């Protein structure tokens, strides 16, 4: 007679089936949004305080007038316009990564596109404020829009400033649409896993996304079309910004090279800003598995390439001013390098052309601390590039009798500092509210690798595009 089975084996038989495990990618990336340490709150508080200080300075400027800015005849475009162009430039990496690299099927963009797109939105928001700050009478800034009014007047569509209004507002809108559409599937992932207030928030924002075949098909199509539309948009926006200068007859501004020169500079500074922000984020949140050194290396290659284009443009400007034989042009460029603003010019040349040459070496491209320092230097250099173009151009126009010197005032520098805090504040909030890496897109590669474990890397990274 066989003995009865031991009791624990019966217990094992009635054990409920284990709940299906959640995806590791979901867990890792949603973890970034969970909880926040004192360091995070302190940093956020610091940003908010600086934004408020800058806001108070702006209120003072509205009360007292633009006199508290450092404007001095003949220089009436100062630090505000410099910073405006700087932030518009920063905004270029996001859509470049999302749209252009998407069309080129560069799959490595998956790890960084979300954060770069978010930076685009925040940078455009920051930039747009400077137009309002610069005009002084903020309550009249809506005059730039073509709206029916009692005077029966319309705006001047032949003015580059108006083109700029259309370019920047289109860019802000399309970038926001792009970011949101990319976020919908990830918001559904967050919705399925959230509780409490967050559940309500993500349920509303995910719009009832379920990932059905029809939804994905429409989603893929929309992303493809938005990429197709955003690609010329990226190139046009900074070209239009450059025409604010190039369409005038100021020596040092009136150059046909300005469009490509500004676009290359924008991509250069945009990638540098993505590196500056993402290197600490990756370290703090332990995202090394998703954002690898390979991604940083690719971005540094972009920085090197655009640095060479920018360096070429600096050289071409000097060559053309010499070759033109126009004395005003030659004087303007001479004083740029050896005049009162020589320091700014040499900071610009060293940070944008000389230091990035280190990126020729693989050791530098894969050494993260060095990369971080270089990216900060590029940001500094690109702010000075705009400073040099705008200020030296205006300070040395045709008639030496109206030459002048401009130094940014404390009020301007306060507001400029506030703009960095404004940008960081939004990015910090974004980190805790939305997935910082595009989960569905990363998972696409994970699932594909499960399907083809032999590891055809090249195939895996070009897989799964639109049909």
């Amino acid at each position, binding site marked *: 007679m066989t003995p009865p089975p031991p009791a624990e084996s019966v217990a094992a038989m009635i054990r409920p089936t284990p709940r299906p495990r959640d995806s590791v990618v979901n867990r890792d990336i949603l973890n970034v949004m969970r909880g926040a340490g004192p360091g995070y709150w302190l940093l956020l508080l610091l940003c908010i305080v600086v934004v408020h200080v800058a806001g108070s300075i702006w209120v003072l400027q509205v009360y007292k007038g633009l006199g508290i800015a450092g404007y001095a005849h003949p220089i009436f475009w100062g630090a505000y316009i410099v910073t405006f162009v700087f932030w518009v430039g920063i905004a270029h990496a996001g859509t470049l990564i999302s749209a252009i690299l998407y069309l080129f099927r560069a799959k490595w963009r998956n790890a960084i596109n979300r954060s770069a797109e978010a930076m685009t939105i925040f940078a455009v928001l920051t930039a747009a404020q400077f137009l309002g700050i610069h005009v002084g009478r903020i309550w009249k800034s809506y005059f730039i829009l073509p709206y029916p009014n009692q005077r029966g007047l319309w705006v001047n569509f032949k003015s580059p400033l108006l083109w700029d209004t259309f370019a920047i*507002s289109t860019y802000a809108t399309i970038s926001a649409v792009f970011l949101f559409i990319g976020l919908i599937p990830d918001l559904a992932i967050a919705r399925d896993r959230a509780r409490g207030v967050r559940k309500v928030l993500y349920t509303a924002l995910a719009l009832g996304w379920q990932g059905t075949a029809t939804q994905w098909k429409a989603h893929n199509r929309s992303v493809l079309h938005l990429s197709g539309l955003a690609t010329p948009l990226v190139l046009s926006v900074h070209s239009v910004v450059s025409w604010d200068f190039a369409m005038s007859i100021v020596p040092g501004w009136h150059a046909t090279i300005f469009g490509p020169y500004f676009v290359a500079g924008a991509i250069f500074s945009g990638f540098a800003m993505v590196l500056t922000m993402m290197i600490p984020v990756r370290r703090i949140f332990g995202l090394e598995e998703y954002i690898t050194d390979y991604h940083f290396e690719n971005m540094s290659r972009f920085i090197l390439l655009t640095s060479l284009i920018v360096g070429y443009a600096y050289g071409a400007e000097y060559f053309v001013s010499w070759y033109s034989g126009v004395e005003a042009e030659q004087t303007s460029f001479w004083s740029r390098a050896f005049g009162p603003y020589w320091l700014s010019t040499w900071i610009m040349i060293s940070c944008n052309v000389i230091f990035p040459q280190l990126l020729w070496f693989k050791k530098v491209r894969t050494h993260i601390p060095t990369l971080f320092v270089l990216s900060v230097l590029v940001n500094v250099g690109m702010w000075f590039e705009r400073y040099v173009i705008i200020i030296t151009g205006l300070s040395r126009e045709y008639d030496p009798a109206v030459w002048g010197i401009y130094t940014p005032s404390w009020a301007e520098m306060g507001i400029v500092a506030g703009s960095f805090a404004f940008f960081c504040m939004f990015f910090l909030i974004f980190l805790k509210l939305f997935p910082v890496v595009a989960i569905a897109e990363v998972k696409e590669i994970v699932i594909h690798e499960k399907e083809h474990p032999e590891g055809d890397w090249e195939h895996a990274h070009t897989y799964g595009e639109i049909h």
Partner: protein
Amino acid sequence: MPTLVGIFEQPLCVADVSRRLRSRGYNDLQIYSPVPSHEIDSALDEKPSRVRIFTLIGGLAGVTTGYAMTIWMANNWQIMLGGKPFSSIPPYTVIAFELTILFGGLMTALGLFVVGKLPRKKLDPEYQRRFSSEEFGLVVRCRDRDVSEIEALMRDGHATEVEVVEA
């Protein structure tokens, strides 16, 4: 009417099984996928998505608005600027270009909402949390007598689980 929910781990398997089901005349199918996949895109519907019509209409509306608005406004209250014609095409091209992209992009988003039936208040009863993890769901509505055939087909196509829900 019974509903079968097959759970799969590979997009290729879902696409394959749904094609086989369709060739046998089962057309009430729905696929839930955690990731975009071109196999699944073409499994239920070979035609390209209708979103492209929306983008086209938006783009055309944008370019028309851009030129019409600038030319009309410049002629509505004429101000001579630098001796240039009132209906000056080159500068207005910048506006028309930006509006093409603006309207095209917004219409693309609208296209996604219309075609993807978003936003919606309630999720399908068959939708499960694991479809936003790493598993794929294939939902088939069928007659009682077809249940065993479909289940066999799904299991044959590497379904990890097949649930039958009576509705």
